[in-house]
């Protein structure tokens, strides 16, 4: 799964930074039919966890009500230089992971 995460490469300690993540995924609702008239099974990214230096900063539980290629934007307090780890899983059990580093000064 292709994903893109964005956060500032550096920040001052205590600064509130903006974090953005977009994941390529159809977010199948389970209400659609394919060309042969067969129902397309529901398949959405049901869980996305974001950890910053091991501690959870954000978690999303999603359903078919979230648009395809889910996009999320939220905030986090810059504490120490380290890494943001984004992990997600969809209904088929397929997992994805993306990392982004941040250097904190001051």
């Amino acid at each position, binding site marked *: 799964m292709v994903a893109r995460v964005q956060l500032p490469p550096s920040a001052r300690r205590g600064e509130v930074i903006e974090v953005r993540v977009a994941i390529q995924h159809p977010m199948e609702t389970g209400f659609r039919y394919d060309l042969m008239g067969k129902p397309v099974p529901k398949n959405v990214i049901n869980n996305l966890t974001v950890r910053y230096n091991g501690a959870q900063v954000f978690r999303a*539980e999603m359903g078919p*009500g979230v*648009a395809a290629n889910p996009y999320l*934007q*939220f*905030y986090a*307090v810059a504490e120490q230089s380290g890494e943001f780890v984004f992990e997600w899983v969809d209904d088929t059990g397929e997992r994805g992971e993306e990392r982004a580093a941040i250097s904190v000064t001051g």
Partner: protein
Amino acid sequence: MARTTRRRFMTALAGVAAATLLPARAQTSNGFAAMLQKVTGGATVTPGRVIVDTPRLADNGHSVPLRIRVDSPMTASDHVASVTLLSERNPRPLMATFHLGPRAGRAELATRVRLNGSQRVLVIAKLSDGSLWSGSAEVEVTESACLDAT
């Protein structure tokens, strides 16, 4: 004879009126009330502190931008624990739940949702002290996300 025809016509008319009422009732039969009860756990929800920012008119229901702000200092003792997005008309009323914490620094987030027609989007924020606050936004959807159509 003429009276019978009129009566029959009126009966037919009443049938038409009843039929047109049905879709309106079906719109709210997505289990929204049950889901609201499940989310809140029967606790009282106070309107306020939650701002839902969304375009008044959404051209396409497949992807409607939504920004949620909660009035909270986001400290260890007083912060937003979770934010739940509910739809009145989607076949599945529960759209998403986001878990935040004091590490977020700011009680604000944005995402994009699917909306099955014009409706009110309800957002319930759960604070660290257990209190529930709600905010909502009316969205006019021109082309709905036809979730149940081919």
